[in-house]
């Protein structure tokens, strides 16, 4: 287990392309899991923040990456906290059934990057990190679970690239 890096939080974005419209009955099992899984996230150890649409419980109504692409943007204290939530909670069941609801992405669909604690990433910033990962592969700027960089490595490698403060 790694200690939380002082002053750094881990941001994650994942995108998922719906196989059917969100209202389609074939998507319903996914929609039913949204509230319990999101509540679990809010109460999970190391959870900091997740993007929600104003007045809604989640961000599924926001489609910044395309009409049929839902986005999931959140911030965590450590990589382990995010990993445990993603793969060692009720969220794993959603992941297991992902092929029933989402198109398989040939390109990367998940990106991780470090942000200064207190900074809430914007959707634009998140999509830039995903583009970076897709264009250049994993680096301290944008990486994946399989090729992780620590906050210290990120800080060392990109002193100029630390995102600006909260908008």
């Amino acid at each position, binding site marked *: 287990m790694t200690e939380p890096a002082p002053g750094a939080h881990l941001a994650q974005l994942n995108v998922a392309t719906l196989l059917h419209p969100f209202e389609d009955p074939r998507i319903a099992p996914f929609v039913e899991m949204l509230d319990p899984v999101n509540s679990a996230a809010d109460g999970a150890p190391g959870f900091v923040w997740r993007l929600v649409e104003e007045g809604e419980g989640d961000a599924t109504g926001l489609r910044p990456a395309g009409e049929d692409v839902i986005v999931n943007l959140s911030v965590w204290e450590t990589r382990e906290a995010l990993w*445990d939530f*993603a*793969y*060692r*909670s*009720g*969220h*794993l*069941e959603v*992941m*297991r059934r*992902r*092929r029933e609801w989402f198109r*398989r992405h040939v390109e990367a669909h998940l990106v991780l990057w470090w942000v200064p604690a207190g900074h809430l990433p914007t959707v634009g910033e998140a999509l830039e990190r995903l583009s970076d990962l897709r264009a250049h592969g994993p680096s301290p700027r944008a990486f994946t679970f*399989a090729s992780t960089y620590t906050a210290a490595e990120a800080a060392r490698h990109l002193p100029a690239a630390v995102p600006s403060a909260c908008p």
Partner: protein
Amino acid sequence: MTDIDAIAVLQDPVRRRLYEYVAAQGREVGRNEAAEAVGVARTLAAHHLDRLTGAGLLESGSRRLTGRSGPGAGRPAKVYTRARVERSVSLPARDYRTAAELLAEAAEQAGLDAGLCVAARRRGESLRGAAAPCGGLDEAVELLAARGYEPHLEQGEGSETGQGAVVRMRNCPFHAVAERFPPLVCGMNLALLEGLIGTDGPVRARMDARPGECCVVVEASKNNEH
């Protein structure tokens, strides 16, 4: 210490019983408790527990077992848990881990989850052979123990009646690959266990992942009057 040396440390029967006892508890175990459980003197248990720690099979820490802290709470006691690192020996050298990781990577990239689950369910069924679906939680514990899952029965809310009891598993036999490709490999594991336990019997396997455990639990089937 190489894997084969570490494993050789388990050859001593007392040491092996101590290791198995600590591993089976799934929590920190003190010297007194381990000595009592295995039926040896405390000093002998301490010696062997430290040998096991030296070999990297156990990890040790210190904790005040009384739960008190501050002055007068007493000296912290030494406690042991099983080390997370895995040891394996293959003679001659074989490397199925790399093969599994490469196959999983290719399956992940090609999106072969469904096909993998079909194969896993079929394998589970063939392991079960002609036997009926698993008949109860105690039988599930036996089946899962034989496959290395380290199952234990966890009482539910209505523990008097046995209602809500589930079988949880401390070990994931596919741990290393499951960590790298969780949805793919955990889905495969669930399908394997569905085949092994059966999906239309009195108990069923269901995904209920928690940190540090296997992703699957076995529980009484709902809407089933067995």
